[in-house]
């Protein structure tokens, strides 16, 4: 009897030790540190817990997704399915929002209600242009894939193939006559990259990466300067990337890396799931073996 108990403790101890070691290795590989995320926190570990945009609405509840009559001074309320206002990540998250009128960036205020004050508003981010928008004009709100949730693992890139989200809308009223002229005239040799990237290059930290990430995606429709968006309905498009995003080569190398990270994260999870099943099966087998042995004795 004592012998069997001894067996029990040895087996349980081994299993515990093994899983704890494996667990610590997993957490070291998979998660980022609580606040000192920095670069790691920016990229996050896409996969296991996705971060999604739930809705984007105006103050009066109008869904921006299907509206073409947006007021000139709108306040967009973006709802996500995780805490995106966490103080430690806020400087990164704030820089993930960009409003474009064709290729030129429009200044916006990105605000939040901090979760240390109102815990119920932790999924909401508010975006408002600083200056009134032009009437009858197409705009695109871009949310970069680096947007990260409080858990430090979930990024928007994890649910958008590292492309971020494009939300198009049209403002109310008639477009001013002057504004209908092409924004930038094409010059010979500019066909491949017809849009000025001046504004893009002025982006804050992390945006360069975002913009170039978009460039590498499978582009179906391209929004070009001076070319009105064909579909006036505001649509969340994850694959439409304006060529304004064409940028330096640095980030081009980072996209396969991000995909690789995602793939490796998924394969690691599969591996761990299989391992856990094997572990439990092993436990049961040991139980049977001990029982049989005990009976024989």
């Amino acid at each position: 009897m004592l012998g069997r108990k001894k067996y029990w403790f040895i087996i349980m101890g081994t299993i515990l030790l093994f899983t704890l070691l494996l667990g610590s290795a997993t957490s070291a590989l998979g998660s980022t540190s609580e606040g000192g995320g920095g670069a790691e926190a920016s990229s996050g570990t896409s996969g296991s817990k996705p971060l999604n945009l739930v809705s984007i609405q105006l103050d009066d509840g109008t869904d921006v997704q299907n509206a073409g009559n947006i007021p000139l001074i709108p306040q967009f309320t973006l709802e996500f399915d995780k805490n995106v206002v966490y103080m430690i990540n806020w400087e990164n998250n704030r820089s993930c929002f960009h409003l474009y009128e064709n290729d030129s960036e429009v200044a916006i205020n990105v605000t939040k209600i901090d979760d240390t004050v109102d815990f119920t508003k932790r999924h909401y981010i508010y975006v408002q242009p600083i200056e009134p928008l032009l009437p009858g004009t197409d705009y695109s709100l871009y949310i970069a894939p680096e947007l990260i949730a409080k858990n430090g693992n979930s990024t928007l890139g994890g649910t958008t193939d590292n492309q971020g989200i494009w939300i198009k809308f049209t403002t109310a009223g008639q477009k001013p006559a002057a504004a209908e002229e092409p924004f930038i005239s094409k010059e010979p040799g500019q066909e491949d990259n017809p849009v000025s990237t001046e504004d893009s290059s002025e982006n804050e930290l992390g945006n360069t990466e975002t913009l170039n990430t978009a460039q590498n995606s499978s582009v179906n429709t391209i929004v070009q300067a001076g070319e009105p968006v064909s579909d006036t309905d505001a649509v969340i498009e994850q694959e439409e990337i304006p060529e304004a995003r064409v940028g330096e080569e640095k980030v081009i190398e980072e996209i396969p890396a991000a995909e690789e990270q995602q793939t490796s994260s998924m394969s690691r999870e599969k591996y761990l799931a299989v391992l856990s099943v094997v572990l439990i099966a092993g436990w049961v087998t040991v139980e049977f073996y001990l029982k049989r042995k005990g009976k024989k004795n």
Partner: protein
Amino acid sequence: MNQPEKEELAAELSSPLDRFMFDLGLADLMRLSMFGTLIAISKYVLRIPMHLPGHSSIYWMGLLVMGKGLIPKFGSGIIMGLVSGILAVVLGLGKEGVFVFFKYFIPGLGLDFLAVLFFYKLESIWVGAICGALISLSKMLVNLLLGIALNIPMVFLAMGLGFTSITHTVFGAAGGALAAIVIKRLKPRLANWE
């Protein structure tokens, strides 16, 4: 497998003579391991679009109470907590690393003592709901203690704690009550489990 072997295996599984941990039979241990695995896997797989803290308590605490109600012996909660805790560590659930084990283990441990206090009447909706709520709150307290141990700023731990405690209570109670209904219906059909 021929008939004598089958009979031998059935006898082995139902034999009250061979007891393992907490005087539980092998069959019970296997069932409890299954419940523990279900808890960890459900937490890993299920994604309920309910953006409230502690909403996973509905199925987490529900499964715990159900396992305890169907195998009403001291130690069953501990086994479920142990198995789900180990799996949580292996699957890398939560950002607490190895310490996530305690988040799964403590509710199981607490349930073992609560069930004794309520005479193992987990098929009663009131008892199920109270046990579910209390073990859900115990999970929240473990979270708080782990936060303190891991040096997470007090501002992040304390702000919103009241609201979090309410949601944990509500979802835990809901899970426990649902489990009580299931236990009530299942228990008579599982009379030959022993």
